[in-house]
């Protein structure tokens, strides 16, 4: 919304600035041209008058007033441009006059010369032709200036429109997305490799990212609602059966206990599913810090020590050089705990579970090896899937989410998980993280 209100005045402002600068420049040039022309025309007239004065004074010196009057009269008849000439004697009477009418000082450029005997010779040249020429020149310049203004305004408008156009297109797309919520639209990228194209590309890239996140979250929501149906059915079943039967306090207590236990399972499942979905879609907030992997392993082993002991499994950490990773401590502990949970669960009494930490190039490895039942080759690729439970694992208690969470969290850290297994001999799970 903001962009639309801003781009119009912005475009107009840009156009006006452009036009104003252009017009001011043009007018100064025009004015200068006019002033120079006018000045040089006046200069030429003055030169003509000066040379005539020189000529007349020479004639007067040689032949006196009579000779001068003869020359003037002859010139009046033959010269292409008529000059006004007046010779005034010492007694202020006009001795020679080219013609009585037309001596109108306001329309003449006049030059005077005082001769040695005190006689004053004056030559006047009409400025009418000059003024005429300048008037025509002014009219032409006016027209030129006007067309410059028009060109400047149109050009400015066109130029800024083409500059603002991509911004406006961007704005339109954004407005449509806000209105419809459809993030699959993209702004066409201009042909030129300029700042606006770059902005458009960045904007499209941002939309790609948002769309990915939104799609991830939608998918997660679909999955969660699907995955919750089964446990909810298990929750509802016992309650319904208890209510349908004859009143019996013992049965009721059983059913209620079932419901509470199932509710807790649903809750754990919901939390785990949300964690997995968030990790997969990149929405999981990781509180990264420097975490020594040996700490993580020790905490997990500590958690499972009693369980392993009760089951008759040797649980050990293989000593190794420590590796520090940049990760979310709690999440990494969850990863280690889930891997141990898995190993302890599928290792029979008398077996061994060994955990170790190692560095391999620029990777930090966390390995959990067990001497358990192993995983059949056809099940190997599917063990990371949500809610997948292999044939052997169905007998065990669990949600089928532990390994999915491990994979999702490790990948959210930029790491990878892998597994090798020999049915009947045991499995090795490897988590590889950027060190």
């Amino acid at each position, binding site marked *: 919304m903001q962009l639309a209100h801003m781009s119009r005045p912005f475009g107009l402002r840009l156009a006006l600035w452009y036009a104003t600068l252009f017009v001011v420049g043009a007018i100064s040039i025009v004015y200068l041209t006019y002033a120079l022309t006018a000045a040089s025309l006046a200069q030429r007239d003055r030169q003509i008058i000066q040379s005539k004065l020189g000529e007349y004074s020479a004639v007067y010196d040689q032949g006196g007033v009579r000779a001068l009057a003869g020359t003037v009269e002859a010139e009046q008849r033959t010269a292409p441009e008529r000059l006004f000439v007046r010779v005034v004697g010492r007694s202020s009477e006009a001795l020679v006059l080219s013609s009585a009418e037309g001596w109108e000082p306001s329309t003449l450029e006049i030059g005077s010369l005082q001769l040695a005997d005190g006689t004053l010779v004056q030559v006047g040249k009409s400025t009418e032709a000059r003024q005429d020429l300048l008037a025509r020149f002014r009219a032409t310049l006016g027209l030129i200036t006007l067309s410059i203004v028009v060109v400047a305004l149109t050009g400015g408008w066109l130029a800024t429109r083409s500059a603002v156009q991509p911004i406006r297109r961007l704005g339109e797309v954004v407005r449509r997305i806000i209105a419809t919520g459809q993030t699959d639209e993209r702004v066409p990228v201009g042909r030129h490799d300029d700042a606006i194209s770059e902005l458009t590309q960045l904007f499209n890239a941002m939309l790609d990212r948002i769309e990915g996140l939104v799609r991830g979250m939608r998918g997660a929501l679909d999955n969660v609602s699907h995955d919750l149906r089964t446990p909810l059915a298990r929750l509802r079943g016992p309650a319904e059966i208890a209510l349908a039967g004859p009143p019996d306090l013992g049965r009721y207590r059983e059913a209620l*206990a079932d*419901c509470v*236990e199932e509710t807790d399972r649903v*809750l754990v499942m919901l939390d785990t599913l949300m964690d997995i979905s968030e990790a997969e879609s990149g929405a999981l907030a990781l509180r990264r810090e420097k975490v020594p992997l040996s700490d993580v392993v020790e905490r997990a082993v500590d*958690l499972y020590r009693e369980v392993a002991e009760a089951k008759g499994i040797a649980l050990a950490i293989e000593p190794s050089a420590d590796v520090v990773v940049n990760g979310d401590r709690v999440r990494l502990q969850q990863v280690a705990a889930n891997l141990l949970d898995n190993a302890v669960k599928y290792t029979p009494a008398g077996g061994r579970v060994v955990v170790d930490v190692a560095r391999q190039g620029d990777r930090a490895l966390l390995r959990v090896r067990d001497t358990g039942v192993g995983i059949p080759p056809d099940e190997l690729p599917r063990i990371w899937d949500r809610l997948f439970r292999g044939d052997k694992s169905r007998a065990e208690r669990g949600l089928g989410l532990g390994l999915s969470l491990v994979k999702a969290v490790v990948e959210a850290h930029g790491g990878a998980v892998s597994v090798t297994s020999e049915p009947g001999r045991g499995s090795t799970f490897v988590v590889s993280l950027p060190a």
Partner: protein
Amino acid sequence: MRALIIEDDQTIADFVARGLREAGFAVDVTADGEQGIQAALAGQHDVALVDLMLPKRDGLAVIDELRRRGRTTPVLILSARRSVDDRVRGLQAGGDDYLTKPFAFAELLARVQALVRRASRTAEPTTLTLADLTLDLLSRHVTRAGTIIDLRPREFALLEYLLRNAGKVVSKTMILSHVWEYNFDPQTNIVDVLVSRLRDKIDRPFEKKLLQTVRGVGYVLR
């Protein structure tokens, strides 16, 4: 002890109120933020339970208002939001503890009592006793009917936690977070295993069984 519940969900408010009354609390219930603030300012409550999503004034605003008016009543926040950020925001606003819905009542009760205890600062006992079972916190000796029982550190921690909450049911989640300081639910029955080992040591040789399982809820020493 007097508790104030500020919660707009009638069902939750009722069941929490009933549970607290059974545990010996006098309980006031209000259903929106405005009433909640009025009630909290008017009465002398030992603890307040505040939902975050409330009509009129939300939970954070309620806590903020109480704190600005100088009330130090301990506040337990109840919320359906489970993210760490929400938890931090709640505690920063002046809440004293945070419990995510849905919760086990046993856990709610334990936290409410812990808040009241902390506020009243009763002297810490150095021995915990139930019937003929005694746990000495200083010497770390456990005896039952005069017989010394040898416990591993983790078993000792579990027994200590159960004794501190003697007579009250504690959930597996509570045990996990107090004994292992572990705040997510591992899928194996870690708690069951430790409980059964403890039971072997403190109950099996004796006639009267003290450590009981309450199915679906948790464990209790009584």
